[in-house]
């Protein structure tokens, strides 16, 4: 701030002379002149504070004119200003004065930077709703007209977004004018403006009278859809959805369909892409008859388009398209008109196309029924399961449930297994991660026997993967499997294998045992936890690696709630106390945290206190560990809660005091 310019000093000093009411504006002026953008930004963001301090009248007469005059700042400041003003109606005295906000927003709607302009338009749209119909015509509509006939493209672009909010409440004469302005923007010289108009065409059509839609919007739509710039044409496709919803079948056929057919065969792939991308919306908008006559052939072309982008977009829509066909004759249509093209796509040269298809193709089985699925779809699924691209295979596997409902997964299991095994051993860990996430789903579909036989070993192998994310996912996977197959299964198949890893020479694997115990203990229940898991955890407290030891502390804290008093008192507490005197700082820290939680639990077992929250352990605010909630704990705030608050607090204090003492004695 070297050599900061003087002019700001005056008002600030003026603020100091006792007249409180001068403060806000003085602060604002001073800050808005600051060289530091951040400070200017701060002051703009507190504009509502300033306005509130000034009161509604002075906000209108002093603050807003000041803001209107000083709009030449950095875009970041202007953006904040545009946003603030959208919520300012209350601060200027309510809807009767909403029009006071228009001048600054009008200037903001003309700036170059798109984000500022868009925000100003958003705020203007918001404020327009707060205008009375009279004020709307007196203030808002003239503003829209000024913007629509502005010199530079920015104001005309902004105007496009404002027509639809003022049209419904305007009088007929004004409505005609508004339509006229919109028309001229649709044929503006600047492509930016035509794009803005095209993107608002659908929105505007919705608020127009049907006659005007037919006589005015449709010609505009036709023109925009044949614009020389593909960026304009593709926006017309979006508008098509809204326009089609408004028209009767006959009108649609006569007025819209020629244009839509043309768009589906546009020479620019961007336009064709847009048609493919909006296909479901278009299908719903034009209704079943036109869909069968026109859209299906168009869709076939999109599915064999020369650009992969377009094919992929179309492939994504296959299921939705089929689903939304009229039930009557649906099967025939799909079998004869869609399926042949899908078959082609299964061996497409582009992997994005194949994986787009793989993500929806399974959904067809419910639509086509058992026999067709087995005869026609199954070969496709099997081919995709063997695809060279892992994502295609993954997409198939992730949607297995659709097929299972129809034909049962057994049909697939022979091909499924090699695919799964290959993905499970993929060199890319993200692929492995993805397949792990489908394991619970696969397990429930394939059943416990198949799982034990074929997949169990994979799940165990992931536990010793060299990537942590995989080991972590594998741990969670085990928990979900136990939830599916029950504790007995866990006791027989999972738990022994997990516990054996506690003796692994690699400390990372030993830690995995602990993580598994964390994940499994709650599902496995008290008995298994106390009898099988706890001894292992306790034994690991003597591990030579500190990371293992503090994870023991964490695990004990985690499984504490599942154990009974005897185990806690007799086994857990002594071990934790020993860890609490560990030479390693982290081990000590986590042990102490665990002690306080366990002590809390013990006390509750002795003297059940209903409270909603486990008190924080010392230093715990630094960590955001999820603290286990005691099962059956009551979160209700009955009278008991109030009665016991004091007791609880004292206990906590005692607890902390003891701990502090405890750790001090060690030092």
């Amino acid at each position: 701030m070297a050599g900061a310019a003087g002019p700001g000093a005056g008002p600030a000093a003026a603020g100091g002379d006792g007249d409180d009411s001068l403060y806000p504006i003085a602060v604002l002026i001073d800050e808005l002149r600051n060289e530091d953008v951040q400070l200017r930004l701060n002051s703009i963001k507190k504009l509502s504070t300033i306005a509130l301090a000034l009161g509604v009248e002075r906000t209108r007469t002093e603050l807003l004119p000041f803001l209107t005059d000083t709009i030449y700042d950095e875009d970041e400041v202007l953006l904040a200003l545009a946003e603030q003003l959208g919520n300012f109606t209350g601060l200027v005295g309510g809807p009767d004065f909403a029009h006071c906000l228009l001048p600054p927003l009008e200037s903001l709607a003309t700036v170059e930077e798109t984000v500022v302009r868009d925000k100003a338009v958003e705020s203007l749209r918001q404020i327009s709703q707060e205008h009375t119909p009279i004020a709307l015509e007196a203030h808002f509509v003239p503003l829209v007209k000024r913007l629509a006939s502005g010199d530079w493209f920015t104001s005309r672009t902004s105007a496009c977004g404002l027509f639809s909010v003022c049209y419904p409440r305007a009088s007929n004469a004004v409505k005609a004018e508004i339509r006229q302005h919109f028309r001229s923007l649709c044929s503006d010289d600047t492509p930016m403006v035509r794009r803005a108009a095209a993107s608002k065409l659908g929105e505007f059509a919705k608020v127009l009278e049907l006659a005007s839609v037919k006589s005015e919007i449709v010609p505009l739509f036709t023109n925009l859809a044949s614009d020389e710039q593909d960026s304009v044409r593709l926006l017309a496709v979006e508008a098509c959805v809204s326009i089609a919803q408004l028209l009767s079948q006959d009108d649609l056929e006569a007025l819209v369909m020629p244009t839509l057919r043309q768009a589906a065969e546009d020479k620019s792939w961007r336009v064709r892409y847009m048609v493919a991308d909006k296909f479901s919306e278009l299908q719903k908008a034009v209704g079943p008859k036109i869909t069968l006559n026109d859209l299906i052939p168009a869709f076939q072309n999109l599915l064999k388009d020369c650009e992969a982008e377009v094919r992929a977009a179309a492939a994504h829509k296959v299921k939705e398209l089929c689903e939304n066909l009229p039930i009557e004759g649906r099967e025939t249509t799909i079998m004869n008109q869609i399926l042949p093209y899908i078959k082609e796509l299964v061996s497409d040269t582009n992997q994005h196309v194949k994986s787009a298809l793989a993500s929806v193709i399974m959904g067809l089985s419910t639509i086509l029924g058992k026999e067709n699925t087995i005869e026609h779809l199954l070969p496709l699924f099997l081919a995709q399961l063997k695809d060279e691209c892992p994502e295609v295979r993954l997409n198939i596997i992730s949607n297995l449930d659709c097929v299972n409902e129809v034909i049962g997964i057994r049909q697939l299991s022979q091909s499924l297994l090699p695919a799964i095994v290959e993905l499970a051993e993929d060199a890319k860990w993200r692929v492995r991660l993805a397949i792990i996430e489908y394991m619970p789903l696969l397990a429930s579909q394939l059943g416990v026997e198949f799982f034990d036989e074929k997949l169990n070993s994979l799940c165990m192998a992931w536990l010793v993967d060299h990537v942590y994310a995989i080991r972590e996912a594998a741990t969670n996977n085990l928990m979900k499997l136990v939830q599916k197959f029950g504790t007995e299964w866990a006791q027989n198949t999972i738990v022994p294998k997990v516990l054996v890893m506690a003796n692994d020479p690699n400390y990372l694997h030993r830690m995995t045992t602990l993580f598994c115990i964390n994940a499994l203990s709650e599902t496995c229940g008290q008995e298994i936890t106390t009898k099988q898991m706890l001894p292992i955890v306790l034994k690991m407290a003597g591990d030579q690696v500190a990371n293992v030891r503090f994870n023991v502390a964490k695990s004990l804290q985690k499984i504490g709630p599942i154990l009974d008093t005897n185990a806690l008192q007799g086994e857990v507490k002594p071990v934790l106390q020993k860890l609490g005197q560990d030479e390693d700082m982290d081990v000590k820290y986590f042990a102490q945290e665990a002690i306080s939680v366990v002590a809390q639990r013990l006390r509750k077992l002795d003297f059940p206190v209903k409270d909603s929250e486990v008190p924080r352990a010392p230093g715990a605010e630094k960590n955001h560990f999820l603290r286990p909630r005691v099962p059956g704990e009551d979160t209700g705030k009955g009278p008991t809660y109030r009665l016991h608050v004091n007791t609880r607090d004292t206990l906590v204090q005692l607890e902390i005091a003891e701990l502090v003492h405890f750790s001090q004695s060690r030092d």
Partner: protein
Amino acid sequence: MSSSSPPAGAASAAISASEKVDGFTRKSVRKAQRQKRSQGSSQFRSQGSQAELHPLPQLKDATSNEQQELFCQKLQQCCILFDFMDSVSDLKSKEIKRATLNELVEYVSTNRGVIVESAYSDIVKMISANIFRTLPPSDNPDFDPEEDEPTLEASWPHIQLVYEFFLRFLESPDFQPSIAKRFIDQKFVQQLLELFDSEDPRERDFLKTVLHRIYGKFLGLRAFIRKQINNIFLRFIYETEHFNGVAELLEILGSIINGFALPLKAEHKQFLMKVLIPMHTAKGLALFHAQLAYCVVQFLEKDTTLTEPVIRGLLKFWPKTCSQKEVMFLGEIEEILDVIEPTQFKKIEEPLFKQISKCVSSSHFQVAERALYFWNNEYILSLIEENIDKILPIMFASLYKISKEHWNQTIVALVYNVLKTLMEMNGKLFDDLTSSYKAERQREKKKELEREELWKKLEELKLKKVLENQNSTYSTDSILSTTSAE
């Protein structure tokens, strides 16, 4: 307006979910995917069954009255397009077309009097048929022109020759713009400009020369070309942030600006302030900054009164976080200072040197270094010396501070030199500033505290208002409740 560009989303959505869990291996994954180095165009879809080409007799073997007819036949033959993505199909026909194109190039460049009025239509038709096509989607949805290898046009073996032919045609002494303007019209130019988005640098290079020739020869198209470039740039700046041919278009503009008549039209000034200056905000500035700075300096050389708005514009868009861009801005400022008039310098010295003082104290040593290099420039030094009483107070605090605090020894050494130079320019002022440095710092700190104080008071004021409001509503409430109780 984000919806105006679906293609980027199209393919990026298709990048496998398993690969985009986090950011860091994506690039390598993406690179590995791209074995295919060249791409086809969307042009083939419109064609039906492929016609096989049959070789026509050589032009040089034909008699002079047959030649013209044969020339047109060959042009028509070359309108047929082939799929280069399929490297085994139509090999024979492709070779025939290549040979024919070569022959055509040679024919128009070595013979006089062959470009007759009746041939224009066929010539332009052949060129349009070959080069005008919808550019295919980028193979690489996050194509980064600075890092990635461009995807090359597959049909280049033919297209190159067509461009070559086009250029020879335009440059031929027989070429008559008055006839050609019937065919090379606004629509033609519009399509030509769209091709500048081609990812293939070889194609853009040809386009650059072609457009330059057209601008030179077709006076009636000049305003239109400028306006369309304007639109392309605005779209690039405010909508898509993506257009491959910005540098090439700027290069052409550089020579166009050079030829502007004085005084400059308002249209041109508007282009400078509303298009070229905002263009500095673009993400990929490094790709075209040299050309952009050249254009800006061209304007200033034409009309020095533009200096102040230009520098204020640059200061407005000064990069906040990107040091690489900051270095480019400093380079451009130096180019501008090189041609600045002393009277103009006085108008902007204060805001400009405030920025420079921020730059010299940048913790990024390249930024600091670039700014300090200004003091190696004789002309800038002379300007500083003339205005030392204004500039020294602005610069002093930063220089003094970094001479003590900057981590980089090169910078510290440079700063010492600069300080020494400044001291020599006005020793007395320098001493005054040195002695008041501490007091100045303290005053700043105090001001800082005062500001916090002000905000606190404001906060209280607001609270007071809110409380007053609450009290008044509360009292109405209580009145209501008492009345209802009665």
